[in-house]
């Protein structure tokens, strides 16, 4: 099957699809829903809890422990999200480089095909 330079639009579109996904990811805030859900009850309704060996945890202790863990986990999520966005930006750069490479290849291939007495010239003579 014969191809032409328009076929290079396919990998370009594939890169653009990936870029759209990454761009949407970059524009979204960190996802705190999961950790919010985990700690919401503990934070909103502190209660007296039984501890190991017959010990107990009073509501203020429970809130303190849960609060520390909750804030720590949010910090981890934000930090991880930032690193992931840095990686996504780097990947976007690679995708852009790929798109530019494919699109820049098209006129060069067309020019080489015309100037070298290739298929188009052949068509003009015998078409």
């Amino acid at each position, binding site marked *: *099957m*014969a*191809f032409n330079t328009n*076929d*290079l639009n*396919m*990998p370009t*579109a*594939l*890169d653009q*699809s*990936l870029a759209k*996904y990454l761009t*949407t*990811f970059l524009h*979204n805030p960190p996802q705190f829903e*999961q*950790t919010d859900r985990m700690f919401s009850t503990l934070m909103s309704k502190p209660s007296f*809890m*039984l*501890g*190991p*060996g*017959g*010990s*107990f*945890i009073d509501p203020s*202790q*429970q809130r*303190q*422990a*849960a609060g*520390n*863990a909750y804030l*720590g*986990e949010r910090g*981890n*999520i934000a930090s*991880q999200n930032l690193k*992931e966005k840095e*990686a*996504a930006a780097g*990947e976007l750069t*690679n*995708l852009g480089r*790929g798109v530019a*490479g*494919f699109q820049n*290849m098209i006129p060069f*291939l067309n020019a*080489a*095909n*015309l*100037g*070298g*007495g*290739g*298929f188009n010239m*052949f068509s003009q*003579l015998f078409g």
Partner: protein
Amino acid sequence: MPALSFPFANPDFFFGVGPYPGSSMFDTALKFYQDELKRSEAGGGLGQLAAGQAAAPAAGAWQAATTGPSAPGGPGSGDLGYGAFSNLMRGQSAARDIGRGEQTNIRQGAVKGAGDVANAYGESIGGQLRGQMAENQAKSQNVLGAYADIANIADMATKIGSLYATGGAAAPALAGGMSGFGKGLGPFSLMNRSATPQFGSQIDPSLLTDPMEQFGSGLGPFSLMSGSY
């Protein structure tokens, strides 16, 4: 393909796009990356599995703490409870961190993998186009070379005709015609490797300005034919 609800975006790539060289391998790889990304985004995939596995040590720590001897209401009993609860919270957070880290690895790996597939597709198509072009150029040069040889033969026939018309005075013209024969890039060009046969008594230098001798010597598309002149 069923539409899924993702937190970020629907990572629907496309595959099975055409019979490009290597398509079957590229498409399989692309589908794997896409499915991996969807599982990760849907929240029911490997990330959660890793979180569940990582939660086991935290649960074990909680169990160990609860079996420790402690007198009810005795000294430090409140600290024991607080410490155990804090450990449980930290353990659960760490487990979820590991799960999210795993999701991050999957997402980045899948996106990078899909990007690599796109690049491989581009290289494959670009290589195929260069190959096609080289083939077409070779064919057209071959045909054009033969075309030039045919033109030279026609020119020679004309000169032979004039030879008959002038009763032999145009013999040098015959030599000029033969000198052009086989100088193209076509199949007849092989005949021009040895010295050109000389017909007649001498060569008229003016014949070198024959239009066919100038043909292809410019910078236009026919310039490739001037290689042997």
